[in-house]
């Protein structure tokens, strides 16, 4: 094998790692940006929802061995927790950014501490389902873990579903109407508070879905709640608040920057993550796809 082909393989791995991470980050960030775009809520507990879902997926998989059940259970629990938080606390703090942020910080602390109480402080990495284990050839260049390719595929599927849901259904139309002009939507008879409850639950569901899908890849560990939250924040800032398309592009960019950065400059990984964000914000203060 020649030196160039080894180099090619290394780059293929870096790019594929980046796409895998990017895919997972897209599932994660799409829910975050949805809550932000529609309800103007910065949900600091979002990472904690992800972490809780990861623990639950691990637990269900341990008990039943069923991957679909694990992911579905994780997503369902996250959605339920999200809905509870929205109904009990957040609805009282409508359009108050700082109080919302602080309250969700409190929720984040409580939810991640619950993880410690129930699953201990150790990292829990879920096994891969047998039908997704092993590796698959990618364009004959490298063999790449099948599960990671599955994540990329799942992210594309989630993206398509979101697009159809938001752009092609009546419900999606209502959501977009609220993003554009909430007051007008209210005036036209949209039940905004029910819509908000639904959107927040759906946003949490996406956090849970990401937690379930990521459980065999990133694993559940103490501190993941803030690691994951930061990724979501960076993506949303880069992509523009509330923009799903922006989140998709930003996720891929961040995923690839992160994997290439980590393998080329392992000591500078925080720079490779945050430096582009700071640069882009200098040029475009409202993000790549944000409205000025």
């Amino acid at each position, binding site marked *: 094998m020649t030196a160039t082909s080894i180099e090619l393989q290394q780059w293929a791995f870096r790019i594929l790692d980046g796409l895998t991470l990017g895919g997972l980050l897209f599932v994660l960030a799409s829910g975050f940006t949805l809550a932000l775009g529609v309800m103007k809520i910065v949900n600091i507990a979002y990472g904690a929802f992800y972490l809780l879902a990861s623990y639950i997926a691990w637990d269900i998989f341990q008990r039943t061995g069923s991957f679909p059940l694990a992911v579905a259970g994780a997503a369902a629990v996250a959605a339920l927790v999200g809905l509870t938080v929205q109904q009990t606390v957040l609805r009282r703090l409508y359009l108050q*950014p700082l109080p919302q942020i602080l309250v969700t910080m*409190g929720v984040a602390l409580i939810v991640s501490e619950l993880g410690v109480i129930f699953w201990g402080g150790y990292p829990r990495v879920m096994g891969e389902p047998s039908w997704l284990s092993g590796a698959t050839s990618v364009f004959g260049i490298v063999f790449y873990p099948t599960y990671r390719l599955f994540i990329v595929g799942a992210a594309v599927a989630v993206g398509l579903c979101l697009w159809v849901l938001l752009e092609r259904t009546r419900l999606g139309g209502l959501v977009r109407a609220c993003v554009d002009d909430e007051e007008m939507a209210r005036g036209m008879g949209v039940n905004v508070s029910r819509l908000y409850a639904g959107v927040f639950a759906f946003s949490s569901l996406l956090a849970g879905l990401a937690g379930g899908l990521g459980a065999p890849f990133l694993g559940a560990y103490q501190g993941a709640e803030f690691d994951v939250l930061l990724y979501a924040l960076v993506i949303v800032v880069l992509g523009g608040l509330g923009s799903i398309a922006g989140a998709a592009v930003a996720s891929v960019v961040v995923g690839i920057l992160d994997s290439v950065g980590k393998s080329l400059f392992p000591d500078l990984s925080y720079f490779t993550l945050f430096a582009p964000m700071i640069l882009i*914000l200098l040029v475009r203060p409202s993000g790549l796809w944000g409205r000025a």
Partner: protein
Amino acid sequence: MRSVVEQRRVRVAVILALIVAAVVVPPHFPPFLLTVVMLSLVYAILAMSLDVLMGYGGMESLGQAAFFGLGAYALGILVARYHQAWPIAVLVGLGLGTAGAAIAGLLAVRLRGLFFLVITLAFAQVLWGIANRWGQMTNGYVGLRGIRRPYAGLESDDNFYYVLLGVFIVAAFAMRRLVTSPFGLGLRGIRESESRMKTTGYNVWLHKYIAFVICGAFAALAGVAYAFVTEFVTPEVLSITTSFDAMLMVILGGVGTLVGPALGAAAIVGLRNYLSSYIDHWIMILGAIYILTVLFAPKGIVGFASRWWRRKEVPEEEEHAAVPAEKGDLREPGRLEPAAADLRAITAESTATQGNSHKVAALQITNLRKAFGTIHAVEDVSITAEVGARLAILGPNGAGKTTLFNLISGLYKPSSGDISLFGKRITRVPPHARAHMGLGRTFQITNLYPTLTVAENIRLGILGTRGARYVVHAPVSSLTSVSERSTELLKAIGLWGRRDMEVRHLSYGHQRQLEIVMALASEPKVLLLDEPAAGLSVPETTRMVELIRSLDPSLTLLIIEHDMDVAFELATEIVVLHNGRLLARGTREEIRASSTVRDVYLGHAYA
């Protein structure tokens, strides 16, 4: 009602008593409690620095830990790794934290709301990442040990406590001075209304940036103190939880006060240290404190206390409301007092100095255009106003009148065209610099500083064009020339009795009047009045017209009016805008006779 002097005496007495208690009591504490007290002092400095930023400056930062951590690490590394003497280590710690704030401020200060939150958070997070990874320097996540205090005598907490107490008192006093200074008043003004501050002469960005850097320096001071107190630094000091905890301390104590954050810091530090030794999952309680504080005590401990205090003092408050009557200048709420003679007197000096500028036009607008996307709000407008002109700008809704004022005052950038003030081109001059060149304006939708008092509103107007707005070390009240002028203006408009009332509690009529007087406070030579009579009743409008007529005749006035009668009363010359274009210009009689104007206002059929 207690007099101000008496209140001040009480406050000084309380502070002295507290200092004496702080000197005498803690050395008798058990060691653990003394440590908790010391940490409380450290976090109090941090929380106060954040509160100056968010409670006074309206900049809600989630990255205050960045400068705290920079100070702590710089000191720790120099002392523990390089065995440097403490003065060098302290100076470098403060310097590095301040420099960090200077860099972060460049990125963050121009952003607002969510973006500001996110970028400050991101900045702190980058440093957190570095502290974790740069093992040779920081010892990574394990943390840096062996930060020895200087001098053998300070190794004991009993002695070091006094050093720390001294640092705390100096820092608290300095921050108190900062928030009561003209600079601090400016910060509060910016929190309330950036657009008003810009058109009053404040460089809003610079003001916020300076505040950001100063607050960063105080956070760095807290960090330096922290490293000496614990003699141990971990990446935790830079983490998102430290930033959030600082914010929780501010809110739990009471935003916009300095006592509050100190109390909040003591509460959180105390709870953390005591509860965490008894309860395994103290973090859950901290989480609950976050939620309960926001839901049930959004004004914090100080808010609770002052509500309780006020309930006790209700009778005195009623007396306070009656004060103006005793002084003989109570005005009916909602009534406008023209006080014509007084106003002419106080505006005369502003224009006395510009005798030689009669040759050039006060304001010249040439081919001005402004497009928002495909909408042409102002289209090829040229207007000249001579010194002392009384020019009314008429036009139906959406004619582009307010857009024109926003272009002249600099809040909007024109798409093309030029604006000159006394012969100097100001098209690209920022709004605050235009105010310094003699341009003032009022707003159609009342744009005051609602939670500041009437006197503070006026003072902000006076300070806008004076260098003293950057004074940080002396209280506003010590500037006698500002106080005199403020008294003069307050008496002239009959708001002297309400000088300590928050502006949002003033009647609408008084607010409209204050709009104009605040603009006059900065002694403009050209004044833009945007619908001064908007929303006023017929008698109030009459008085407003009298007030405007009483202004110095050499002051150049541009007045937007909806109401033709008012415009005809006030102006010698009238321009009519329609769909962004200049439709007509002429004297009252010419405009009255113009058939095009009639068409615009009344429709063809009527004409």
